[in-house]
């Protein structure tokens, strides 16, 4: 039996009254080994930062484990202090989203190799009738990125759009990943 999907609708302008509770942007506690920050903006076609986007992330822990029954591996055990999923709305003063998390380990790809460390990202907002899926890759993983199962399927000239930048001289180590919804350097989105 194949049931038909419930259609998607926009989160609209008021989601933050519900979908933006305290602590949801922290995937790890304030003191946690390997804690990093992810920060960025979401830009529209006019290159204006939008202030009503919802950004959600899902990733493996530092050992590359997902806290999920579909992860078939048993070792190493997943990090019990790590939530895996986070949610952030845009801070009206900085026009940025921000997460505290860890850099994920490598996880298997369908061909049996290991994927480069990456974070799955879902972007939604007013004016967006369905979610946009993208991925963040890390700038200090050149060799792993070069062999990554998903990046290899992205046209070469657009791959750099999925690699975060680094912000220097801040604690904890911070990566910058801006999302551009439309335009010449439009973020690569996936048809998931």
């Amino acid at each position, binding site marked *: 039996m194949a049931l038909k999907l419930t259609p998607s609708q926009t989160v609209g302008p008021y989601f933050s009254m519900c979908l933006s509770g305290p602590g949801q942007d922290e995937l790890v506690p304030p003191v946690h080994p390997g804690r990093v920050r992810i920060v960025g903006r979401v830009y529209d076609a006019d290159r204006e930062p939008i202030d009503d986007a919802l950004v959600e992330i899902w990733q493996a822990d530092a050992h590359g484990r997902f806290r*999920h029954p579909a992860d078939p591996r048993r070792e190493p055990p997943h990090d019990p202090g790590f939530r895996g*999923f986070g949610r952030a709305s845009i801070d009206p003063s900085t026009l940025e989203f921000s997460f505290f998390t860890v850099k994920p380990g490598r996880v298997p790809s369908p061909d049996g190799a290991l994927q480069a460390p990456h974070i799955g990202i879902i972007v939604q907002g007013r004016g967006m009738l369905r979610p946009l899926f993208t991925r963040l890759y890390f700038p200090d993983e050149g060799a792993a990125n070069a062999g990554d199962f998903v990046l290899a399927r992205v046209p070469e000239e657009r791959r750099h759009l999925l690699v975060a930048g680094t912000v220097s001289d801040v604690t904890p180590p911070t990566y910058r990943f801006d999302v551009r919804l439309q335009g010449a350097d*439009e973020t690569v989105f996936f*048809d998931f």
Partner: protein
Amino acid sequence: MSRDGARRESSHPPYLSPSYRSTVKRSPAHAPLQVPLTLTELTGPGPGFSELVVEDADLTTNAGTGNAALGQRSIVTGRVLDEGGEPVPNTLIEIWQADASGRYAHARERDFPAPRDPNFTGRGACRTDADGVYCFTTIKPGPYPWGNHPNAWRPAHIHFSILGPRLVSRLVTQMYFPDDPLLELDPIFHAVPKEARPRLVSAYDHATTRANWALGYRFDIVLAGSERTPREEGGSWR
């Protein structure tokens, strides 16, 4: 287009739907890339996140003022299923909505002269039970004006967010009410392919209606994915 892609395109609205004006500058120009799903997309948020959300399924009292919210008290219930018809248990559902006058309890709400209900927060959350069933008690929200086009009004709706068993089953949608004349005028509802629109409209359900208390509406939800869905509880989440 892949079989999965065709399935989605027959159900979901396109990214660009110019009659909903805000989509024009917020929709990608490139078609999203088709890539095989990996473990990252086949897993997804579970108890580690949903424990952060306080479960509270009665919006008629959760303002905590001691007074009940104004409006037509309504029980909204249904099942969350995957495409194979299997229930999706223990998944987080969060809802938000306007009050009976069409006002949102949000600081940046577009203002219009209608009274706000101080006894209504407009938000609730629960997890589906072992059969995928959820149930909220709320009030029927009012329509409200918005700036998309002259004399534009959103039909009465409740926003739904469902995490689902994996990243790619994540769904945010809006539930509408039956026999609403504003549906035919609404560009957000109309962005959905015509044959899929009825799936967003709840059904009046007299079996759910409770005598001398509340009207009942049924709204079933089908998430992407068709394998047997993993459970948050029962020992399989490690």
